[in-house]
């Protein structure tokens, strides 16, 4: 990096990332799956697929539906549970020389805590706490929609891990800054936003919802304006770093998020369309910085706020 004209090195919650480009949970497996298509170790970090305490079979087929500029999914967090992850997947993950975040989901505050503790092991750089899951106690509303719940989950996780903790927020809220401030107060080291927008699609031939779960999460370029707006709003209200995502398909989109205030960005749906997109985005950011004569990431992040 030293003789390069621009330096993409990114400090995220004390971790040194090679660059600000990460892959998003649920869209890159554990990173390994992308190896045939690119040198995964060149990425800033990988966020693994959502892990729960126990094995989850997920929702029946009818898990995906394309929409204009977007993708609806209701995978239902299919995964084999934390223990399987630790014994079967993590050893493979360790072979890839980049940061790995484990993305965790629980049904209760306690479950989040147990997961955090279980995953406080070598080979995991940090945790990303997905608080978009329905919260039994708050009557099915996600933890991510009620500031107090978001705060409790954060506190519990922080208590039980020594690793940096990103809390990943749901965009399906009236005031994203209230949730962001709550998790900051709860001790989050950083915030990831956004998760998917709740949406649906109907098959007019069968006259039924296209997805087996009726509703699904909307991702992809369609949601970029919403994600970008939320990053911009939250940047003005919290001090902890923001990891921006939602509809980033190329370097230009990534740069928008960085300018809006994201310290790092994640690629989600983009991986599904082009499994080598990560490398292209890194290159594109580098070229942009060279062209604009911006030497390092700190000089770029948040610049749209003037």
């Amino acid at each position, binding site marked *: 990096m030293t003789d390069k004209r621009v330096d993409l090195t990114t400090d995220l919650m004390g971790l040194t990332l090679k660059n600000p480009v990460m892959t998003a949970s*649920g*869209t*890159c*497996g554990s990173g390994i*799956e*992308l190896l*045939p*298509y690119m040198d995964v170790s060149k990425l800033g970090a990988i966020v693994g*697929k959502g892990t729960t305490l126990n094995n989850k*079979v*997920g929702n*029946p*087929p*009818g*898990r*995906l*539906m*394309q929409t*204009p*500029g*977007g*993708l609806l*999914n209701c*995978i239902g967090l*299919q995964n084999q549970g934390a223990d399987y992850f630790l014994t079967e997947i993590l050893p493979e993950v360790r072979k890839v020389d980049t940061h790995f975040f484990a993305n965790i989901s629980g049904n209760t505050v306690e479950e989040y805590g147990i997961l955090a503790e279980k995953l406080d092991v070598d080979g995991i750089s940090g945790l990303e706490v997905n608080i978009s899951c329905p919260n039994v106690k708050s009557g099915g509303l996600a933890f991510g929609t009620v500031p107090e719940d978001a705060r409790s989950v954060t506190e519990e996780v922080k208590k039980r891990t020594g690793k940096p903790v990103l809390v990943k927020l749901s965009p399906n809220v009236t005031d994203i800054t209230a949730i962001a401030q709550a998790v900051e107060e709860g001790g989050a080291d950083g915030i990831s936003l956004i998760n998917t927008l709740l949406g649906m699609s109907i098959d007019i031939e069968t006259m039924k919802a296209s997805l087996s779960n009726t509703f699904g999460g909307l991702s*992809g*370029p369609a949601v970029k304006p919403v994600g970008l707006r939320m990053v911009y709003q939250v940047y003005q209200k919290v001090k902890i770093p923001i990891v921006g995502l939602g509809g980033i*398909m190329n370097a230009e989109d990534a740069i928008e998020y960085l300018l809006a205030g994201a310290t790092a960005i994640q690629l989600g*749906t983009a*991986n*599904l*369309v*082009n*499994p*080598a997109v990560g490398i292209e985005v890194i290159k594109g950011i580098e070229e942009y910085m060279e062209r604009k004569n911006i030497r390092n990431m700190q000089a770029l992040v948040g610049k749209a706020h003037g």
Partner: protein
Amino acid sequence: MPYATQGIITKNNPLNHQIYRMEIECPDIAKEASPGQFIQVKSSDDGAPLLNRPISIARVIPGGLQIIYAVVGTGTRQLSEKSAGDKLSLIGPLGHGFSWQPENKKVLLVGGGIGIAPLHALAEGLHGDHIEVHTILGFNTKEDLFSQEQLAQWSKKLWVTTMDGTCGIHGHACTPLEGTVSIEDYDHVYACGPEPMLKALAKICNSRHIPCSLSVEEYMACGIGVCLGCVQKILNEDHEETYQRVCVEGPVFSSKEVVFDD
């Protein structure tokens, strides 16, 4: 190993009112491809549709692939508008395709509609290994016919069915099994087509204990196993129902594994 690469279209012609055959130069993919696998094709660089389209490898040809596709929506229409010389972003070969035992003597291939596409490479491969191939091709009506001559090259016997009786046997692709064709004569049955056809065929083969491989379809996003979107309900070795990825563990499954919903 799969590749993400750019192919070059060398041919793209209609086979009938709805079906096209395209040839694509893509040596990397071609050298690894085997029957029953598929590729992810990017029909537009402008973002609409957003996702790649999964298309079966119909045949492997020198330095490239042949695909056969039905124009059913935006993506396949865009494919049909492309010309020789155009570039095409591809990922492949993907998935777990057909396989066969060299000691098999006689096998039956059953294809319904566009499900006939992947049977080309299979028939060609079986024929090359001196296994006797019999084939049933099911269509809705006479005008929908395609590939029957091509498949006849590699098939000792070939039956065509049409739902409206305008050509061949009147009925669906499994109708011949009610009389004309005796399922017990075969060492293995291979099939690709609409779900009701696969379901009916699985029932017949399972009850007679004839090994049967089904190529199933599911809505896909990534095609490479990362999104978990394309699952099929499968009865695993431990007799548990699990969801397996059509794009990695499939698209070809044994008829004994596949759990069809009622």
